[in-house]
């Protein structure tokens, strides 16, 4: 049998025997960022459509958790940095070719916007809220007058945030598993689906629940389509990408990917949501929690499996 044995003298921590540089912080952040993007997208979309009254959980309630999601995500990113005291360098440079630079600047826009959106709706949660200082009251007036503009910024930047969480990985040609442009749309769809699921959990209106169950179903369909497409692309590509796909098709990540992400995170919630729409009695938080679980697992498995896939040895 023709064989090739490679012995390398390199044993750098976090790099060998296979790359192990990114841990829980990155997938957690990718999930929280995607989820925040999903929630803010629907909030802006239905506000701009004038459906604020019909879908209160989407437009008013759910966005209240996004500042927390983004803040925790940012803390996770900060923990991931190894040269922490230089983090500000992210904001003294704009590198158009670096997805991470794009991400840092996108967060710089969408995090304050999410805070503003919550401030504008704070009286929904605390009816007697008073901003106390006139300056802040003026500011609130200014923002509420320009709410439409804010909603447009939120809509556009939430899409950028959602898609960037995937592009961050797909830009690395050194890791064949990540190096597919499907990852951008896949992570965006997964983020939107997680956002819809969160709205489903928070909503108290039957009309709204029905709408978001339907949206979630469509998004799960798109996700499954993208995943099939991704594997078709991998298997029709070069050897390194075939090897990358095989991590999920018989390799060490097969069980976790197909069981946690595809079956528990997509197929099962889709079936439950169809049953719910067909008037079976199913607690609506159940499929939603499964979607969120699948969304978390998708990112964790991709970040870890991607670091195993390689070109050389």
């Amino acid at each position, binding site marked *: 049998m023709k064989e090739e044995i490679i012995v390398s003298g390199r*044993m750098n921590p976090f*790099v060998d025997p296979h790359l192990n*540089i990114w841990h829980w912080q990155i997938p957690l952040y990718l999930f929280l960022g995607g989820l925040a993007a999903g929630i803010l997208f629907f909030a802006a979309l239905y506000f701009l459509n004038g459906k604020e009254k019909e879908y209160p959980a989407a437009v008013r309630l759910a966005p209240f958790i996004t500042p927390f999601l983004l803040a925790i995500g940012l803390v996770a990113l900060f923990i991931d940095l190894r040269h922490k005291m230089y983090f500000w*360098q992210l904001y003294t440079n704009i590198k158009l070719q*670096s997805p991470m630079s794009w991400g840092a600047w996108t967060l710089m826009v969408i995090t304050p916007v999410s805070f503003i959106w919550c401030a504008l709706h704070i009286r929904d949660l605390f009816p007697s809220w008073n901003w106390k200082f006139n300056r802040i009251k003026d500011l609130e007036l200014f923002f509420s007058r320009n709410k439409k503009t804010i909603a447009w910024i939120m809509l556009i930047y939430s899409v950028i945030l959602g898609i960037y969480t995937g592009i961050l990985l797909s830009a690395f040609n*050194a890791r064949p598993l990540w190096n597919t442009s499907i990852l951008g749309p896949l992570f965006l769809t997964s983020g939107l689906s997680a956002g819809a699921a969160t709205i489903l959990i928070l909503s108290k209106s039957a009309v709204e629940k029905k709408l978001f169950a339907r949206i979630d179903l469509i998004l799960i369909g798109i996700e499954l389509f993208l995943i099939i497409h991704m594997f078709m692309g991998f298997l029709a590509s070069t050897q390194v990408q075939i090897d990358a796909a095989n991590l999920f098709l018989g390799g060490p990540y097969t069980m976790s990917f197909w069981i946690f992400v595809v079956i528990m995170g997509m197929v099962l919630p889709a079936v439950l949501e169809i049953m719910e729409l067909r008037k079976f009695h199913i607690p609506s938080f159940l499929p939603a929690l499964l979607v969120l679980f699948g969304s978390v697992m998708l990112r964790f498995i991709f970040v870890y499996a991607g670091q195993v896939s390689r070109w050389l040895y």
Partner: protein
Amino acid sequence: MRYAMAVDTKKCVGCSDCVVACQTENNVPIGYCREWVTEVTDGTYPQLEMEIRSERCNHCENAPCVRCCPTGASHIAEGGIVLVTRNKCIGCGACIASCPYDARYPHPDGYVDKCTFCEHRIKNGQKPACAAVCPTKCIYFGDLDDPNSDVSVVLKKRKVKTLIPEAGTNPQLYFLI
């Protein structure tokens, strides 16, 4: 100016003198290396062939690490040398993940570290430590734009390969085969 390096796989005996010289010259932390020796054995027993390579950063012309760096800490310096500016590096690890040769590592002090072609030595007209110390003189270094440099001469004479050119990085570390 375009610095490049060529390693003669027929002359390299895999003694790792280059590895130790690099670690000493550049004060590389213990347990880490900027360059390493790889031994590849292939064929069907008993017809086996062995190739020994002294490997390091390929100082790619189309360097993915420079492209993905969010702060510009990773940059291409004069002569095409890929360097990291320590006090601009945030230690995010993007460049480490982006390198198909896995030539970078996180320094225990936080920043990302890698082969510099011994930039501090070549400024003074010296060879990089690995090339200077090699007992079989199998590491050639020089300027590709100068037709009489060691590396230009040997690249003209010999059959040459680079590692995974299909990764699209246009590596500047050559292997004489």
